[in-house]
């Protein structure tokens, strides 16, 4: 059964198949139905893959072409601005972290000696 499905699938994919074997298989009605199913599946896959990508005009359906350009330009500018702002804030944080006031490391440690008040 598995061999029958594989052979029919290969046949649909355009691979070489033995004609006598295919003829024998197709004498069985269920195998003919299987071949038709494979064929339909193949057609449906081909039609999806061949569909060219299209811009979803419905998104800006209310806008004309010139308005779309302005929107796109605005979006690009906003993205650049957001990147620059993020960079500046990040740089400020890094600079603040690096220059944050902290006690310097001592080269030696000494202890105060108690003083009595005379």
């Amino acid at each position, binding site marked *: 059964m598995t061999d029958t499905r594989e052979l029919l699938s290969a046949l649909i994919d355009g691979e070489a198949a033995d004609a006598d074997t295919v003829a024998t298989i197709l004498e069985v009605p269920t195998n003919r139905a299987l071949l038709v199913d494979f064929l339909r599946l193949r057609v449906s896959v081909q039609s999806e893959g061949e569909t060219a990508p299209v811009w979803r005009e419905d998104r800006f359906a209310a806008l004309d072409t010139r308005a779309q350009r302005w929107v796109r330009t605005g979006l690009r500018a906003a993205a650049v601005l957001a990147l620059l702002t993020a960079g500046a804030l990040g740089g400020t944080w890094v600079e603040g972290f690096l220059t944050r006031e902290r006690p*310097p490391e*001592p080269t030696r*440690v000494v202890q*105060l000696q108690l003083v009595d008040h005379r």
Partner: protein
Amino acid sequence: MLTKCISATAASVLAFMGAVSGVAQEPTRRWDPSSEMRPILFFTAGDVGRSSIELRVNEYVPLVITPAFRNADDLCVSSLQFGFDPTDLDRAPAAWHVEARLVEMRQGEATLDLKWTRRVNRADVTPAGSFTSEQRVNLREGDSRILDLIRTAHRSSTGCDSFGLTYGWGLEGPRTLSDAAIAYDLWLVQQDADGELVTDRYRVTAKQGQQVDYFFRPLSYTADGHRGGDGATAILMNISGAIRGRVRTDGNIDLTVDGSRGFTDAASTAAVASHGRTMLTVRPGETVEVLTDLPVAGRLSTFGDLNRMFGKHRTAVRITAKRLW
């Protein structure tokens, strides 16, 4: 007079070098006073005047102090004269002839012998006549003591009823560096027993040999020694002190650091504190850490043993000193 005083005592530098090498390095290993440092005895009379003599080891150095009173009715002083002429004792309304010698110098302290004579030639001033005293004194650097005090026999409602002379012992650095200035960068580094770290910073500038105070923001604690919030503060820890530096000709700086760690209750009704001092020599820009977690004598009102409560806390002041000019 002052010039005469200075020139006459200039030769004592060599004697002091011998004193330093023979006396001062024994008591402590940390204090390594420069041979450029000169021990002095200074005299002051309020804010009217100040003069000093350079001390010699086991050799008396004299000084005659003569106040110039503004008028004959009171003891308000317009100026002080310092010299070496003992006959001033007979001429001036009041004068003191002081002789001093250095006996011994330890870390931040000195033992001196003082011989002095007071002569009062004004009938309205008491005690009248002459008085002579001789004493051996132990002085800490920067401390000031009263040498003598005279009063008018009749109280004056507007003038000065008394005149007092004070004295103290100190060290001075090289004369060529007398105009030097030092910048101090001080950091409080407080680490509690639970590992919490708090830092605070204080910066101050001072002249060569000038002592300046430092202090930090008080730290709040609960009654069991943990860091306290706004409503839970029971004890406040105060770290403060004073620092004095002298630049050497080799660029290093001699430091005298006084520190105090005190505790007060939240209502400021009771306080205890301990004080300490250390002297050390640092390289320019070198950072040293001075531990100020001194044991406290006594108790703070109803609180327990502060030494046990704060025994595992570590309190230190990191000091960086640089010569400004």
